[in-house]
């Protein structure tokens, strides 16, 4: 019996100890009318070599395409040591460190993680992580409403340059708590959020402003101006940041005069594979004054009765298992295993390594944009600096380009029209440090040939805009 160690003798003797005749008898408190039949919809069991063959076939089927897609999940190099150590049984098969004395490994690691994230975001404290970037933003919004004692409005300004899926997730999660999410439109030329677009809210009661840097379009926002504007209104600032970019760009804690109050975002770029969308982890940091409003697990450093330094879960009075209906969130787990990977990843790269990765991402993205816009049918949409992705407009139907590129096993980017109807035939393209000059050339060459075929065949072509 897979994974079940009992011999027939074991079963017989154990039942004798219990005083029962059969295992079946142990279920005699379940009403007969409810008993389950055969589970005929579940297939027969497979031995390890059979399931291995099946999974290898399915993994092969997905083709490992050359990835120029970002939009919230990024194809970075992950050092070999990261998952070698992360999947050690002592990390992999432990649980939440309720028994601190038997969990010092996980607890110290989380303390180190919290320190690294606080350093990276330029803020004072970090929690032990949330589920992912999108749900992390929802928790940050709830937290800001609790933390902003000057505001009574439960009103959040959220620019449309914030990832559309993050906005949707936030809506789903905060929707039943009478929180109002007000969308702020972006500047069509720059692809950023303008202070002028916020002017109409001046003097109004706003709990918080959300700023994503780089924003969903990859564009760099004027974070100082936006942050100072929000603080002048008595609103808190929630910064949504890319952890790789933070090694290069001004971190949320340094935005404007006073810095963002809460930073959150997707931790996936720090050593977590794209893996079809998860598991990733959401990070969350804040200024010291708001720590008691933070959701999720937090680890603190303390001493034992011999004055030896040790680590333990702390501030648990915020949490659901103590406060029940009055908790800051219903969240229970963090994403411990991913935090383990990220902590090892950050330790291996250090500040210098992360910065070089960030620089290489940016430089490669520029090369990619140069190579693709060499075609007269492709042009950048926004005229502002970007980090490692940006939007390109095609003057022929995007579908006609994307399908043949997919056939060459290239993921050319993310089509923006599904979330921004005004951005027709527009592709959000991304290059990380893992894309080589040859990769970029391959993309550009294929694209050139496809465009040539399309235009020669007399497909509808719009003139390139000046």
């Amino acid at each position, binding site marked *: 019996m897979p994974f079940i160690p009992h011999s027939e003798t074991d079963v017989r003797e154990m039942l004798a100890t219990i005083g029962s005749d059969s295992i079946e008898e142990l279920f005699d408190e379940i009403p007969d009318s409810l008993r389950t039949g055969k589970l005929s919809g579940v297939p027969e069991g497979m031995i390890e070599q059979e*399931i291995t063959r099946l999974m290898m076939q*399915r993994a092969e089927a997905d083709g490992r395409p050359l990835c120029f897609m970002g939009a919230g999940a990024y194809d970075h190099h992950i050092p070999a040591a990261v998952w070698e150590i992360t999947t050690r049984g002592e990390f992999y098969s432990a649980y939440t460190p309720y028994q601190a004395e038997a969990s010092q490994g996980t607890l110290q690691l989380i303390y180190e993680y919290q320190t690294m994230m606080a350093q990276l975001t330029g803020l004072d404290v970090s929690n032990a992580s949330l*589920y992912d970037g999108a749900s992390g933003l929802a928790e940050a919004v709830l937290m800001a409403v609790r933390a902003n004692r000057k505001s009574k409005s439960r009103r959040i300004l959220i620019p449309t340059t914030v990832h559309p899926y993050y906005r949707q997730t936030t809506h789903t999660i905060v929707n039943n708590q009478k929180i109002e999410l007000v969308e702020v439109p972006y500047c069509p030329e720059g692809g950023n959020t303008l202070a002028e677009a916020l002017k109409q809210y001046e003097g109004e009661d706003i709990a918080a402003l959300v700023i994503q840097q780089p924003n969903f379009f990859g564009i760099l926002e004027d974070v100082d101006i936006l942050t100072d504007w929000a603080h002048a209104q008595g609103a808190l600032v929630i910064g949504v940041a890319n952890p790789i970019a933070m090694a290069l760009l001004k971190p949320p804690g340094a935005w404007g005069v006073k810095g963002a109050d809460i930073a959150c975002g997707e931790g996936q770029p720090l050593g977590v594979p794209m893996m079809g*969308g998860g598991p990733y982890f959401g990070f969350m940091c804040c200024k010291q004054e708001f720590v008691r409003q933070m959701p999720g697990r937090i680890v603190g450093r303390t001493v034992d009765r011999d004055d030896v330094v040790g680590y333990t879960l702390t501030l648990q009075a915020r949490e659901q298992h103590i406060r029940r209906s009055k908790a800051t969130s*219903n969240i229970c787990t963090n994403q411990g295993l991913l935090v383990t990977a990220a902590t090892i990843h950050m330790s291996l*790269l250090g500040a210098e390594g992360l910065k070089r990765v960030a620089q290489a991402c940016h430089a490669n993205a520029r090369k990619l944009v140069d190579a693709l816009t060499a075609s007269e049918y492709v042009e950048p949409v926004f005229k502002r600096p970007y980090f490692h992705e940006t939007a390109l407009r095609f003057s022929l139907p995007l579908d006609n380009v994307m399908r043949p590129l*997919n056939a060459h096993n290239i993921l050319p980017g993310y089509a923006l029209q599904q979330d921004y109807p005004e951005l027709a035939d527009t592709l959000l393209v991304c290059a990380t440090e893992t894309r080589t000059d040859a990769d970029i050339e391959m993309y550009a060459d294929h694209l050139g040939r496809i465009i040539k075929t399309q235009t020669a065949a007399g497909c509808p072509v719009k003139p390139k805009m000046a």
Partner: protein
Amino acid sequence: MLIFEQSHVGRRALAQAPMQEADISDIPADMLRTDVPGLPSTSELQVVRHFTRLSQKNFSIDTQFYPLGSCTMKYNPRACNTLAMLPGFLARHPLAPESMGQGFLACMYDLQEILKEVTGMQAVTMTPMAGAQGEFTGVAMIRAYHDANGDSERTEILVPDAAHGTNPATAVMCGYKVREIPTDAQGDVDLEALKQAVGPQTAGIMLTNPSTLGVFERRIEEIAALIHEAGGLLYYDGANLNAILGKVRPGDMGFDVIHMNLHKTFSTPHGGGGPGAGPVGVSKRLEPFMPLPIVGYDGDQYYWITEAVRPQSIGRLSAFMGNAGVLMRAYIYARMLGREGMHRVADYATLNANYLMARLTAAGFDVAFPGRRATHEFIVTLKRQQKELGITAMDFAKRLLDYNFHAPTTYFPLLVPECLLIEPTETETREELDAFVEAMIRIQQEAENSPELLKEAPHTRPVRRLDEVRAAKQLDLAWSGAAE
């Protein structure tokens, strides 16, 4: 020693980052970072050694018996990890077109079908990223259902007092008031109190069955009828699904919506506190409200079900497809167990729990509900030891660590004083259970003869009992020397 304390300014042993700095001159200077974040400068060997040593300070399933009640700490088969981490799966971008993800989508779809079958539900969504998010999903759907019916007077969710803390916290996140229902002396829901509490204001009830008291709620059919007659819906907290897998299905018990904890019942790793996965199954009437994305199959191709098909969906709960890699591990586990294996899970989890309960009872320990069957777990109460010897459940738990056993869950459920909630799971050998019993007997003797051994425990771990008051009062959440 912290990793930061092993850092050395100027050490650059980087093999993982580009060799050169790249040109970034087009980014305006006022957008750039001016300080250097305080991450360690260490060599690869230092990092590997540091984190390997840290791992060795943990108890885990792979190294110790871990009978943590309500957490189902069973063996996590290695094949599930190895196969979920095949390069083709790891390299899959979540927004890649369906045509380039048929292998991945096939696994997700198959798992949906398996979960539907074992729970007896009409449809399953796999996007919730943990049990607590599954609960949120379920209650948000209950609310969406009542709202769609114009039934907006329903403001209360009923929660038994034995429930997990996530239940009331979730109900509040969904905008509901919580009304607690007491438990009777046998560990079942107090039916009379429930009858008093149910009314036109009832949106639904959140139940765990078997309950957190380690017993099966015998009058579940009456409860279901009572709630349904009042127009409310039943939510099933699947924390204890391992106890009944293949024996009784939540759908057949009358539940309208359930979540499963795949990191419990389907043996995905607990990872030091996550990631979990909390798929949600629904009855027919809640299907239109399920969160997106969901995987569909047209007989030829797998595809994402979108908002166009499900306009009443409560929406999106994560950036992408929930914890896809966890779902993949659960799928591999489910395929290895197969139909017969599913039935065996509850069989042997229940056999182990009842055996352990019988042996501990024979050794003189008091169980909380002596007249009842154990399910996959049971409660020992140390109320007598506390009264007679001044020894608490905490003291027992800490002393168990010295005997190289992880402690059972302590002080939960809150209803039973000085409780140990013990869940051995089906993957433990009889010898391991016997060794645990021997340790409990010896600790009981120590409690009587040299109680200081327990009061001072643990003695063998890297640290002794920690000053938690100091941790909360003199907050130290990040190392102050990191930036130096």
